[in-house]
């Protein structure tokens, strides 16, 4: 069962949340970030090239221009490969674990998997940055102290959705976690 909704992130950009319910114990949430806008790309390229041209008129060395072109290309590729995240996915499988995937604009994917036995809870936390922002995070159990929390893993770091989107995801995750806890303590 698939479902798509559009939300906005904390900066005002448009996000698309895709929910897939594979089964009562397996759900996937996919957040697509706004794409690289042509306007910002043009602006950066133009500023870099204008600066290079200004240096060229000062130094009369044409290497500066070729260097500027090279730098722009390499910088763009690096940005797409290392920085720009297109999509963030959260996959919850009851009794197995939680997997978070970030796919970059160049196609690179980086995955993190957390076992269900390590997960204590999924909560929405508040943070005070320039304003108050909310983020969803996974609390991990502390092996030494049963009631403590050893680590906090934030989810959807690049997409940064707002509270309404987070509430949707939170509710679904809590259903699964409740189900998992019930079966874990059951027979």
């Amino acid at each position: 069962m698939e479902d798509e909704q559009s939300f906005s992130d904390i900066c005002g950009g448009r996000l698309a949340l895709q929910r897939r319910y594979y089964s009562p114990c397996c759900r996937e949430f996919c957040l697509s970030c706004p794409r690289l806008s042509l306007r910002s790309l043009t602006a950066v390229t133009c500023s870099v090239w204008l600066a290079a041209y200004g240096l060229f008129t000062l130094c009369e060395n044409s290497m500066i221009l070729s260097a500027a072109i090279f730098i722009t290309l390499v910088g763009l590729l690096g940005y797409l490969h290392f920085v720009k995240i297109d999509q963030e996915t959260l996959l919850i499988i009851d009794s197995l674990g939680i997997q978070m995937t970030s796919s970059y604009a160049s196609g690179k994917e980086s995955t993190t998997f957390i076992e269900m036995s390590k997960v204590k809870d999924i909560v929405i936390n508040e943070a005070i940055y320039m304003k108050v922002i909310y983020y969803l995070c996974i609390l991990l159990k502390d092996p030494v102290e049963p009631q403590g929390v050893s680590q906090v893993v934030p989810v959807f770091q690049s997409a940064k959705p707002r509270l309404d989107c987070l509430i949707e995801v939170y509710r679904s995750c809590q259903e699964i976690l409740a189900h998992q806890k019930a079966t874990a303590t059951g027979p």
Partner: protein
Amino acid sequence: MVLKAFFPTCCVSADSGLLVGRWVPEQSSAVVLAVVHFPFIPVQVRELLARVQQVSRVGVTVLGTWCHHRQEPQESLGHFLEGLGAIFSHEPWLQLCRERDSKSWTCKATRRQASAAADEDQVLLIFYDQRKVLLSRLHPPAALPDRQAGDATPSARGLAAVFDTVARSETLFRSDRFDEGPVRLSHWQSEGVEASILVELLTRASGPVCLLLSWLLSLLSAVSSCWVCRLWPLTFVGSKLSTCEQVRHRLEHLSLIFSPQKAQDPTQLMRKANMLVSVLLDVALGLALLSWLHGKNRIGQLADALVPAADHVAEELQHLLQWLMGAPAGLKMNRALDQVLGRFFLYHIHLWISYVHLTSPFIERILWHVGLSACLGLTVAVSVLSDIIALLTFHIYCFYVYGARLYRLKICGLSSLWRLFRGKKWNVLRQRVDSCSYDLDQLFIGTLLFTILVFLLPTTALYYLVFTLVSRAVWMLGLGLDTGLAQAPAPGGRRAGPDPSARGRGQLPAPVLAGPAAVPALQTGSWRQVPRPSARGWQASPPPDADEPPALQPRDAHLPPPQLRLPPQALVELPVPQALLRGAHLPLEAEGGQAGLRDTAAVRSGPGTLPSRPTPSGTGAGPAWGTSTAHRSWGLGAAPCSCSSPVCWGLPLV
């Protein structure tokens, strides 16, 4: 209740058969390792599983049936498969079924004893890549404080149990379809065991090669520890030259690498691997240096530059002495003593220069042969270089020794006579200063001598100061090389950093600090008490009793500290202050106790045995090596199932 079934991707297209694997009840998950195909005899299947279980200590059993309908669904096969559940009983019994060219599977898990809430278990099917899981061995997590001994090794928490199961049951994967066994299995290696010919050949060859090399090395160490080499001059010289030290280290490294015993655990394996790689790197760098040296006649140029350099140094020293013999820095020296000392040292320099000129025709040959030692490793070449520098500046060290000895004598005399001047005496028994009544003639002579020594003090002090500074300047040159040598890995697997308290040459020169500062201290006569280390810069323990040898700081981390017997009250009733070892040169204070040095050196540094110290630090460094996951990234050939055989020959080939 959800049941997780881990199914290998290589068995997706296999024929129908039995599922063989391990059931992990804590996570209610079934890890399928292989599929046994028809026809089979149940007894033989049971035997195979029992054998695998015995070798790998993984509880491998029959978990269920796998049905792959390639043609029309056969009803008879279905009944047959259900009948198998009666022969190999397992709780719960897994039944996986796949239609021909269909993406949907049927997964059923039935329990014999139906519970009251008898709903069928849900099956969560997880595909895993056997090869990748096998190749990524996880290191066992650090033991938690509340784990009992009952937490057996096969059971690890969570998904690590799955990894563990697959990694440990590699005996099951050894038979492929070309083997004529009674049971036909299907797993990731059933198309043919993955191996590389080179790795196999190396494995076979490494055994005899290791034995031969370790025999040769033992022969070498036996030769070096025979009685000829235990004579005192040789051991003394050997313990001073850092070349012998490095060669000994190298022998230790090599004998550890080529030892025919298997490495017991991953940390030891890593240590061996680390050592092998460092030795190879060292030798490669040494060979590069060798090729650079022997090209373009660089050795000839070096030899040509050596003698003029020595001459130049000698000339500078002569100028220095001429300056000292005049009125250095406007100080007025005692003429006679000045001339005597100056002429003595000048004669020394003359002797030294004649010696250097005598050996100048042979220097090039010597250098050429010594340069060949670089093929043993870069560290050996550097140690040879540092030894050459030490030998070439030996005369400067000699001057330092003479000046310091004279100064020491004078100071001893001065303090004792000062006490006499005040009417006191050092009590050996009580280790303190007592008053004493002297006779008149004793007082008279004592005062005379005291006056003489006092007036001769500036001359001696100046010579001492100048030569100490010069020898320390030379020592600083050698310090850089020795610090570089200290970075080489020790046989205990520990990277020995420049540990100033442990290495002789790395120590701060306490006599330098104490020298100028000790002059005012000595005039108050307080240095015979327990020296205050921080105030005066002595790196010393409290002064010993007359009979007990003090513990000195070890020369480096591998030799036990030589126990020296200091001459108590050799001259006058004063304890000689603590001696320090300084690299290749014993300070003069320690040489005063030559009697003690002779017998202790013969006892301690003779055999050149392995040190006993690094072992606790070696095991302490163990966890630091072993906490990374997936260490099997050697890239020397994909032979993951043969990891035990190269290990048993001590080579880190995986």
